[in-house]
């Protein structure tokens, strides 16, 4: 456990010393505000809530999270430092969790820096702060899901570009799976159970139910197990590469 925090701290520090942190936070804040105010019509809606802000998170994460996760393993493999890391007396699980948690905590930090929006909406009206808190937690959980996919894709390839594209693509699938249009397309011919499973696996379905203000055990379980499954896949991929190639 000690190793895990050591690795996590090292990773977190490297976000800041490589300036990734500043660029990411800046772009995240700029885009999320732009989406909220221009596309989401924050003022025009005349409602004191943050749904125009949260509604865009899945789409924002679609390209911001892969940009963050692509380096997790690909960079280590490219620079050769993976050989150093994996010959230190730590377990692979510690390395994978440490790296993932660092990235996840970092997205949490970026997310929490949007607090001025929350202050604004409280100043303008009387929002349901419980729903807002649940949405923040939901958004963070969703970011974790995206990151876990990214961790696995990053372990697959030496190239960060490939990791970025694969992660974006797979994340898109998991977002789209719950999109009404896509569900309708399948609903016309596929058995209901398949359509339900698809909807169940979608980020949109779970995120939407959380943003309504109910952080149900089911949704929580979905995201946590989703993350664990993809981190476990990361473990398999890294182990496989250890057995198969230099």
């Amino acid at each position, binding site marked *: 456990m*000690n*190793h895990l925090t*050591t*690795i996590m701290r*090292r990773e977190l*520090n*490297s976000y800041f*010393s*490589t300036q990734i942190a500043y660029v990411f936070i800046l772009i995240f804040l700029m885009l999320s505000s732009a989406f909220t105010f221009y596309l989401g019509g924050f003022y025009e809606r005349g409602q004191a809530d943050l749904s125009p802000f949260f509604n865009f998170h899945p789409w924002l994460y679609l390209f911001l999270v892969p940009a963050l996760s692509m380096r997790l393993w690909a960079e280590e493999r490219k*620079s*050769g*430092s993976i*050989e*150093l890391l*994996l*010959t*230190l*007396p*730590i*377990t692979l699980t510690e390395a994978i969790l440490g790296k993932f948690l660092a990235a996840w905590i970092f997205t949490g930090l970026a997310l929490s820096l949007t607090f001025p929006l929350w202050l604004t909406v409280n100043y303008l009206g009387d929002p349901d702060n419980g729903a807002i808190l649940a949405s923040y937690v939901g958004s963070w959980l969703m970011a974790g899901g995206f990151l876990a996919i990214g961790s696995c894709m990053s372990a697959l390839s030496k190239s960060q570009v490939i990791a970025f594209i694969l992660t974006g693509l797979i994340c898109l699938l998991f977002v789209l799976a719950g999109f009404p249009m896509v569900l309708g397309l399948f609903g016309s011919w596929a058995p209901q159970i398949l359509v339900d499973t698809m909807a169940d696996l979608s980020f949109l379905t779970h995120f939407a139910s959380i943003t309504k203000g109910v952080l149900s055990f089911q949704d929580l379980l979905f995201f946590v197990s989703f993350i664990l499954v993809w981190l476990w896949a990361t473990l398999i991929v890294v182990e496989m590469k*250890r*057995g*198969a*190639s*230099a």
Partner: protein
Amino acid sequence: MIQVSGLEKTFGEKTVINNLSFSLVSGEILGFLGPNGAGKSTTMKILTGFLKPSAGSVSVFGHDVLADPVAAQKKMGYLPEGAPAYEEMTVLAFLEFIAEIRGFDAQQRRDRITDVVRKMSLQDVLTQKIETLSKGFKRRVGLAQAIIHDPAVLILDEPTDGLDPNQKQQVRALIQSLSKDKIVIISTHILEEVTAVCNRVIIISEGKMVADCSPSALEQESRYHGAVTIRLEEAHREAVLASIRGLAEVDSVDVASVLVGTCDLTVFGKQGVELYPYLSRFLTRQELVPLGMFQEKGRLDDVFRRFTVSEGVVGTDLINDAAATERSAAEKRQAL
């Protein structure tokens, strides 16, 4: 001690390591030799638990690297090829990280870092990012992290590759200065390094072990071992050459010009002949004073080439049967 048995590694169709077995005890400094692509790095990656072998086992002080990698890795310090590090970190932060992973508390970390920084002369670059350092410094940072926990086993993959002669000297001095009860494995293709620091040599070629002996035994394998090189003025060349070739004790003579106006005759004696005193007396009788004359200890690059270019695998028994290999080498030279 380290016990390697029946180690094999295949990448797809390609066999990189083929049934490699050896064991090392404390105090042995092993020079791991072989041409590029012979499987040196792969072997080291397996020893340190980075790669998994296709077959065989490695145990480090009783800890099986496959079954219990963490316990084995605690015993080892490793400098991977090219000394990779987290480039965006400062030297100090990097060493802090490694020391923390190695399980030292704050006070111990300070002591350990002070110690390796002094050993590797890193005082002046402590607060610099590793990416800004020269190759030599990067290598020293890599060595520093490898020895920070004073490991019983030190595995160094080409520790002096790409360093300038002064830096090479430094690294060698460091390896020699390590206490005598360690196991050190150094891969290299710089042969002088082997005689300078190692007390055992293993040569691998195409994943197979082709020699396992001491550096001096390896030198004796050379056809140059015991040969005498005489430096003469160019003008005397033909006369001396003719008379030496006529001697009963002399097997053959190689001629090379090294300096302008002079030439080097390398004289090979017949089996069992003490050539140096014999030639010395002969030259005196001829009233010839050579510019220089010395007895060859054996040329490692010559042995290296012979062991690694050949198709036929020569085992450790070869060391006991010098004559046979000498003959096969002679045949090979003719064939070439």
